[in-house]
C-alpha cells in the first residue's frame, strides 16, 4: 500500500450530507471482477446524463480541472452499501483523503484498507472549511498524519482521530492482512482451544 504522511492540496467540495455509496459509484458499474479503473465512474450520475453525455458545469468536473487530492464532504459520508468500489473509485481518481464530520463505518474501514485517509472533523470546523473553500476554491488544505492535524488558512487547525495501530500502518504502508498472516499461530491456538 502507498504510504501517507503529509497531504498538501486544494480540495474538491461535495457539501451535501448523507452521500451514499450508490452516488459515489452506481451499482451497475460493479459487474467487473477487477479493482482497476473505477475513478472514471466516480459520482457518475452527477456528471453524466441518461445518454452518457457529460453534464455541463457539473459539481465534480468543474472542480477537477487540475489534480486535487482532498475531497471535502457533508456529514455521514459513505453511508449505504459495503461496496469497496466506492473507496477504490475515490482513490483511483487521485484522492488521498476525505474530510467530513462523520463517516459510515464500513466506508471508513474500506478507505483505511486502501490508504485513503478519512479525516473526521467537528461540525464547526467542517462548516468553516466548506465556507472558506466556497469563497476561495484555490485554498490549500494541509493534512499532517504524524500530528493528526488538518489546517487551512482562515479556518484554523484541528486534530482528528486515528488509532495508533492504523496510523503506523498508513505511515509505513502496512496492511491488515499482513498483520493477520503474521499472527497465524495465535489464530490456530484460538481454534484449538475453542474446539477442546
Amino acid at each position, binding site marked *: 500500500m502507498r504510504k501517507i504522511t503529509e497531504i498538501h492540496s486544494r480540495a474538491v467540495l461535495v457539501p451535501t450530507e448523507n452521500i451514499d455509496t450508490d452516488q459515489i459509484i*452506481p*451499482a451497475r458499474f*460493479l*459487474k467487473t*471482477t477487477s479493482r482497476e479503473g473505477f475513478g472514471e465512474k466516480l459520482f457518475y450520475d452527477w456528471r453524466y446524463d441518461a445518454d452518457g453525455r457529460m453534464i455541463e458545469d457539473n459539481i465534480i468536473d468543474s472542480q477537477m480541472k487540475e489534480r486535487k487530492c482532498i475531497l471535502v464532504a457533508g456529514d455521514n459520508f459513505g453511508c449505504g452499501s*459495503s461496496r469497496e468500489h466506492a473507496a477504490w473509485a475515490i482513490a483511483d481518481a487521485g484522492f488521498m483523503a476525505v474530510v467530513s464530520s462523520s463517516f459510515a463505518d464500513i466506508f471508513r474501514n474500506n478507505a483505511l484498507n486502501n490508504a485513503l485517509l478519512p479525516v473526521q472533523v467537528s461540525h464547526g470546523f467542517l462548516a468553516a472549511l466548506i465556507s472558506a473553500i466556497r469563497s476561495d476554491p484555490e485554498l490549500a488544505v494541509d493534512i499532517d498524519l504524524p500530528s493528526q492535524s488538518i489546517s487551512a488558512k482562515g479556518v484554523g487547525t484541528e486534530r482528528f482521530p486515528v488509532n495508533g495501530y492504523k496510523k503506523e500502518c498508513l505511515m509505513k504502508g502496512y496492511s491488515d*492482512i499482513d498483520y493477520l498472516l503474521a499472527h497465524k499461530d495465535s489464530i490456530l491456538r484460538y481454534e484449538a482451544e475453542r474446539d477442546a
Partner: protein
Amino acid sequence: MGKTLFDKIWEAHRVMEIPDGPDVLYIDRHLIHEVTSPQAFNALKSKGMKVFRPERTFATCDHNTPTLHQELPIGDPASAEAVAALARNTSDNGIRHFPLGDPGNGIVHVIGPEQGIVLCGQTVVCGDSHTATHGAFGNIAFGIGTSEVEMVFATQCLMQSRPRQARITVDGKLARGVTPKDVILYIISRLGTGGCTGCFVEYSGEVFRNMSMDGRMTVCNMSIEMGAKGGIVAPDDTTFAYIKGRRFAPSGEEFDRRVAEWKSLYTDEDAVFDMEYRFDAADIRPMITYGTNPGMGVPVGSAVPDKAVGCDGPGFDKALAYMGFHKGQQLEGFRIDYVFLGSCTNGRIEDFRAFAGAVKGRHKADGVTVWLVPGSKEVERMIEEEGIGKILKEAGFELRQPGCSACLAMNADKIPEGKYAVSTSNRNFEGRQGYGARTILAGPLVAAEAAVTGRISVPLSFEGAPSIA
C-alpha cells in the same frame, strides 16, 4: 458491571487485542456473493494462497441474476462472467456454492438462515451491508469490504475496533396492519440515517419478543440504514424453533446441547449501554418514505415535512427535488407506477403471505407494473405449496424468480427514469432502483394496497387510530 449480549459474543471470538488498535476477531460464518468476492479471490490467488477454512464459507449468486428465464444463459456478458467467476472460485477453493437454479439458491441473507447455516451466538460477515440481517438470531453480524473478505479467506479473522452500543426498546402492542418494516422505518425516521453510526444496536422489548424470525430479520436488516454496524435480538424459543430441522443446523442431542448454550445469550440486567432509546408500539403506523434516504419517512397520511432528522441541510431540498415532491404535500392517494415486493428486507414467506392476504379477491390496478420476487428458491417453493401463488395469479399478478432484483437494479429489473415505485426494499437512494427512479419504501401491506389501487394508501387491515395530524 454486567455484560451485554454483544459483549459476550465479541469476547468469545476475540483472538487477540492490539494495544491502541483493533481486536482480532474470529469469524464463524462467511457468506459470499458474486459482486464483492472476485477481487478478493484474485488477490488471494496472486499471493499463491487458498481459502484457509473453506467449510466456514457459503456462496450464492443473487445480485446479477435475472428474475425471468433463469434456465437460459445470462444475457448481460458482464453479469454472466461475475456469476461464472463465483462458480470457478468456489470450486477451486472447496467452498459450498448454491448456483442459479439450485434449490438452495437465493438472496444471501435469505438463504443463510433458511438453510440453517447461520445459528446463534456467532460472528457472521459478508461483503454486503445487509449482513446485519443475521443479528436476528443473536449473532454479531456485519457487512465488510472486499479487502476484509480477502482477510477472512486468508485467516478466518478480521481486525475490528469495538463499536459503541445502543439499545432500542419498543414496548406495547402493534396495531393490526403494522408490519416489522413499519417498525424499523419508524425507528430510522426518529433517529436519522446516520443516527447510530459507530454503534451496534440491540433491539429489545415486547414488540421484538412477539415478533417472528422473519420479522426480526426485516428489522435487523435495516440497522445499517441508520448507520449501525449491526443489530441484534436475543435468541429465544422462537429462534430455536426456527433453526430446528434446517439443513445445515445441528440435530438430535447436539441441537439440544447447543440450545442449552444459546440460552445464556442475553444482556445482563445491570449491563450499561452507551445510548438507550425507547419507543411506544402504539405510536407506530404504516410508514412510507418521501425522500432519498431511509430516514426520510412518515406515516401514510402525514404530509411531507420540512426537514428530517440528520437531513436538514442542502440534502433535504435536493432529495425533494429528485422525488418531485414538495414540503407540506399529502402523499396519501398519490398515483404510483411500479410496485416491488422482494429483497433481503421483505422477500421472505411471511411477506408473501401478508401481500397475498391483502390482495386476495381483489385485482391488480391497471397501469401499475408489479414485480413479485421471492427471496429464494425455498420461498418460491413455499409460495406454491401454500397456495399463495394461486391467490396472486387470480388477482392478476405474476411471480418472478428469486434474486436481489429491483432492490439495486444490477440485473434487468430497473425502474425507468422519473417513475415512482413503492418498494419493500431497503434503500431509496437516488438512482438505486435505476437511473432517475423514484423509490418510496414501504412494508408488504402498503405495497399490496398500492398494487391493487395504484395509489399510496393505508392498508385495509390497519386498525390503528384513523387519522394523524
